[in-house]
């Protein structure tokens, strides 16, 4: 303020004005009533960890792909949304919440292990419950992205749970992608899961294609978070970004 006396009047006025503004900033208690975090953009992975995923190194590649995706989410700092990630696994006798929905930068990734059957229907039900629960995904969140990866045919009743997922109020608005791994993947189920008629099921004929799919998903999500309209679906052409799957 003492320097202001030596400045021309207009400039001194501006300096005093700025000082007052800074003072107002420092004193504001508005932050007590406003959210301290950016709007979340939920990414929910429904991952097949049935016994067959243990062959040909598929589960190892899947673990690496998910881990790299999370690392990329953490490493980006030009986001207009805070990416939250959740992983639901289906293998053994039931679907489980492997990773509760949380900000990517707070995740400590624990690798998944392959075993047992393919209870995909249970995974649909669990995903639907989570998306419909406003204490898990608040209304201020951007549209969730849900990704389904499977290498086989569901071993439980999946028709009803998928119908409920696709027709429920909130979950029906999610952006959905699907990938079939290997030749045994159930294309019909994966197709039914997609969010639009233009969408297609991606196929990983080799294990390395799983990683490319997750790179594509990562780019789709980060593109949304940088865009002016993070609620809009982004359709990146894998060929244009030189990803082979």
């Amino acid at each position: 303020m003492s320097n202001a006396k030596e400045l021309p009047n207009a400039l001194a006025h501006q300096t005093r004005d700025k000082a007052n503004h800074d003072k107002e900033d420092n004193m504001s208690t508005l932050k007590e009533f406003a959210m301290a975090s950016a709007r979340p953009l939920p990414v929910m992975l429904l991952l097949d960890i049935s016994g067959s995923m243990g062959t040909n190194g598929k589960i190892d590649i899947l673990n690496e792909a998910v881990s790299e995706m999370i690392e990329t989410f953490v490493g980006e700092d030009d986001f207009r949304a805070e990416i939250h990630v959740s992983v639901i696994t289906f293998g053994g006798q039931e679907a489980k919440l492997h990773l509760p929905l949380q900000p990517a930068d707070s995740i400590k990734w624990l690798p998944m292990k392959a075993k047992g059957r393919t209870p995909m229907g249970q995974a649909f039900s669990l995903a639907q419950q989570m998306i419909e629960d406003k204490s898990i995904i608040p209304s201020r969140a951007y549209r969730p992205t849900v990704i389904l990866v499977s290498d086989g045919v569901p071993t439980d009743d999946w028709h009803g749970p998928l119908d409920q997922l696709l027709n429920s109020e909130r979950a029906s608005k999610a952006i959905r992608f699907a990938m079939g791994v290997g030749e045994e993947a159930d294309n019909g189920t994966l197709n039914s899961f997609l969010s639009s008629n233009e969408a297609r099921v991606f196929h990983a004929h080799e294990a390395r294609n799983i990683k490319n799919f997750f790179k594509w998903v990562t780019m789709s999500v980060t593109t949304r978070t940088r865009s002016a309209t993070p609620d809009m679906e982004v359709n990146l052409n894998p060929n244009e970004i030189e990803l082979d799957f």
Partner: protein
Amino acid sequence: MKLSWIFREVFLGKKEIYSFGASECGPLHCSQKLPNEDAWLRLSGSFGLLAVVCDGMGSKPNAHIGSKIACLAVKESVQRWSKVSGAPISYLLHLIEVTWRLRLHPIEPDTAVTTCLFILVLKNKIWIVGGLGDGLVLVRTGTDLKVVVGEREEDFSNQTNGLGISKSTSSWSIMELPPTNKERIAVIATDGISDDLIPDQLDGFTQWLIDEFAKLNPYMRWRKLSNELKNWPTPQHLDDKTLAVIHAPVYRER
């Protein structure tokens, strides 16, 4: 009348009721050199006191025009409606809808969709608060807080209701409040604000508005509020932000 008002204002520091508000272009529109798509208006007249806040729907090309015209449409409609004693509130809502479309013409309404929230305090001290579409409308009488518009109608940040979409006045959320001797404050805000407010802190937020702004003069209120909206504390916020308040304090006699 005017002299007595000045006397009360200047010498006694008293005012039965006052209004203030501000609007700030959000970081998204600022960075793209696009206009603020929110609009607001406050007005006193023979009808009483009015505050309006409108949020043009971002995906629509004429959103910034729709919101400004909506503010004017509410003003004109209130002026006409209030002259007819006993006219139902539904007539006011119809009038707003039609006036907005007339003023907008030849712009297509569905290219200029906007929310429309207002606080109207009539001369007989009846308060009418509410609106159409997302955002925040709350009123606190004494310690009784009522949220008239608050919970999102649609999830995941999508606006689905507003002038240009609504087909019926039943889509409006309106509350009429009788005169009271208690302190009363009503707050209206666009979703750029309401989406980032902690839901169980609305009472605290309302009290904060009184504590921080009641004691200021009108210019300082506007400047301080603009500054608060410009420096909104939620990280990576994008939206335009607009808020308006009408406050009827209870002053102790000296």
